[in-house]
């Protein structure tokens, strides 16, 4: 697997829905197209939420995984 290199990290640990989505939405708009955001969350609703958010906004969810008991997402800004 290619190693993903993020341009920015957004830690949403401890935040509940809809805050991870809200903060991700704001953070991705501060990146340039093509840049990658790494988002970390502990909300168990985050994996389905980020999948839906990606599908609807068009920003690419490159990876949805778990690290150290937390949910980790790599998202590329596409537009």
């Amino acid at each position: 697997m290619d190693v993903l290199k993020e341009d920015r990290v957004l830690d949403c640990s401890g935040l509940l829905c809809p805050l991870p989505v809200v903060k991700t939405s704001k953070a991705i708009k501060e990146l340039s197209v093509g840049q990658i955001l790494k988002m970390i969350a502990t909300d168990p609703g985050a994996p389905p939420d980020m999948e839906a958010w990606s599908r609807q906004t068009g920003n690419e969810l490159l990876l949805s995984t778990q690290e150290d008991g937390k949910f980790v997402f790599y998202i590329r800004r596409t537009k």
Partner: protein
Amino acid sequence: MWKTNDPDVKRILYVQTHGEKDPERTATPFFLATAAAAMDHEVAIYFTMNGPQCLAKGNGERIIIPRKGGEGKPLKYFIDQAVDMGVRLLVCQPSLDLHGYTLDDLIEGVEMIGGAAFNAIACEADAVIAF
């Protein structure tokens, strides 16, 4: 009434009919609208029946969302989140009259529409979700 013409942007209209008698029913429309706005959708909430009570000045602080075994958050927390994400708040005059309100009794930024505009917005929305 909807501002976007972009076919990729979905339009969601929430309808809130509950107010201060049902605090447990007040936060969710704001909460879901906030998430929808974060998905780059155009979002509005229409307040009718007891719904305008959610928008009366001071009620955001007064209405506490009950939470089992813990301190509930005030409704204002959810309202501010939605407004911050660009969610539009709509009311109509008859529902204000019901409570003796004028637009001045409501928090800043609330837009007045009528029944015809409401129906037009509903017909032009991709989803209408009523509470």
